[in-house]
């Protein structure tokens, strides 16, 4: 039966993940005060994406889940990105 199949992640690995996340947070904040023009938003979003990827794969155990689930999660994000992009086809070309 498909019970208790979740992979166990060691404490150390979790705390390492936290350190990386904290570091990335630090980077976002410092970069925000540097003026990069239009890139600021892009960089902030990029870092946020990296962070959420780390949370998803480590904290949420996605790294160890079935391929199917990983694909589904990916598709949800792609769908959302498509919806935003398509809405912008209207707003960007007004």
């Amino acid at each position, binding site marked *: 039966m498909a019970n208790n199949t979740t992979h166990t992640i060691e404490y150390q690995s979790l705390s390492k993940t936290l350190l990386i996340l904290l570091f990335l947070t630090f980077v976002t904040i410092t970069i925000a005060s540097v003026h990069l023009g239009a890139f600021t938003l892009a960089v902030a979003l990029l870092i946020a994406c990296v962070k959420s990827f780390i949370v998803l794969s480590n904290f949420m155990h996605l790294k160890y889940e079935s391929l199917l689930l990983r694909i589904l999660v990916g598709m949800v994000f792609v769908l959302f990105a*498509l919806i935003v992009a398509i*809405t912008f086809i209207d707003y960007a*070309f007004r």
Partner: protein
Amino acid sequence: MSNVSANSEYVSYLDHHGKYKGIMSWIMATDHKRIALLYMYSIMTFFIIGVVLGIMMKLEMLTPGETIMKAKMYNSVFTLHGILMIFMVVIPGLSAVFGNFFLPIHIGAKDVSFPKLNRFSWWIFVVGSIMAVLSQVLKDGPPDTGWTFYAPYSTTTSSNVIMATAAAFVLGFSSILTGLNFIVTIHQLRAPGMKFFNMPLFPWALYATAWIQLLATPVIGITLLMLIAERAFHIGFFDPALGGDPLLFQHLFWIYSHPAVYVMMLPAMGVITEIIPTFCQRQIYGYKAVAVSSLAIAGVGFLVWGHHMYTSGMSDTARWFFSLLTFIVAVPSAIKVFNWITTMYKGSIDVKPPFLYALAFIFLFIIGGTTGLLLGSVATNVQVHDTAFVVAHFHYIIFGGMGFAFFAAIHYWLPKMYGRMYDFKMANIGLVINFIGFNLLYFPQFVIGIQGMPRRYFDYPAKFQPAQLVSSIGGFILVTGLIIMIYTLVKGARKGAPAPANPWRGSTLEWQIPSPPSVENFDEEPVIKENPYDYK
């Protein structure tokens, strides 16, 4: 085929009470079959109210000017008619009734994955429905925004918009939970040996539907929350007087509501895909194409919402983009139609009521679908957008399509659900009257739509009267047919002759168990065939 009397353990799900007695044994039921019936009875109730409202509109349309009601009343009537029919009848319709009943059986399971959640979905469906009814009677008066709740009218009118939108929110939540339950059920509970590609096609359709319910509904949820906040706190997302953008509301609304039309349609297509092979005694033609086209419709269907907004002042780039995608999403529907008709080729066709309903469905669906193409093309949309043409399009497709599919389904599965048979002759008479009435009711709407008759018009120029008259007459014929049909079905379900386990010689799993099914559906583990439509 299991023999009913020989099996001493057999208890029909209709007789098995569980912990509770009487009505509680229904309200507290977790059995997917009982929940399906609960849904059916509640949906039927709302459907009948909706039909009455529809007929009231037709009476009002008999003559220009005031016929039986005032403009304010008319506006509330079509609003309630739309909310009721869309959110409470056709969106839950097929998936919550027949999906609940037959999905677990089709995949060889005893129940859905989360039976309690399933019961909870029905409860909040009821709560949402009660809220919708309350919105009609509370102090500020029934909402008069149309089912689309377009801002800024919906943010400024003094009627009960908050209650109505909250009701739609709750109903959406119910829809999400049903979808969630079905996806998990299909992933986890398929009988050993049943791969995705030897699932029957009705579960396939439900699977695609469930993904739409799951992923599109939250968007309308948040949109309605924003609308409520807009009214309560003037947060100004949509109201131009506060700096908001009414077009943004339309985008958000249709991001959900276009995919939602496929929530209505995909299960209907699934039903037809079950019926045709059974009555032709032939395996479905192009199994894989039909299965995959459901997913394709669901997927691409997410990206075409803008075709409701061609004239709203959207950018020209967006107009062609949405038009192009709209046309692409029509192709998988066409594939299904071709496959159904090819399945009849060299079959052994048994013309029984369910099959006749399926044929009527195909005919009406083609009309509804191809008029959708006229709407999807930008130039012609400009002419017929927001006219009676659109009204005719969606009535053809929603209830010529989804409605007739529902009727087909009920004629197909009633013997299984109640273990009794209905009168074929009466059913056929009902069908013919329905079909004639339906076309009389809605075909004239295409004509006056092309001539410019706008929709949601309480009053109209006298030149449209002849067509409106024909249409109103059609409405009455349709209702007559409907009454005959319901009478036949109710009589069959209560007093009909006992039905055999497999009256139509179907090949899918529900026909291998007794009618009505036992509480646990299967006494022994079902045997899974390579091809669910194996008639050799």
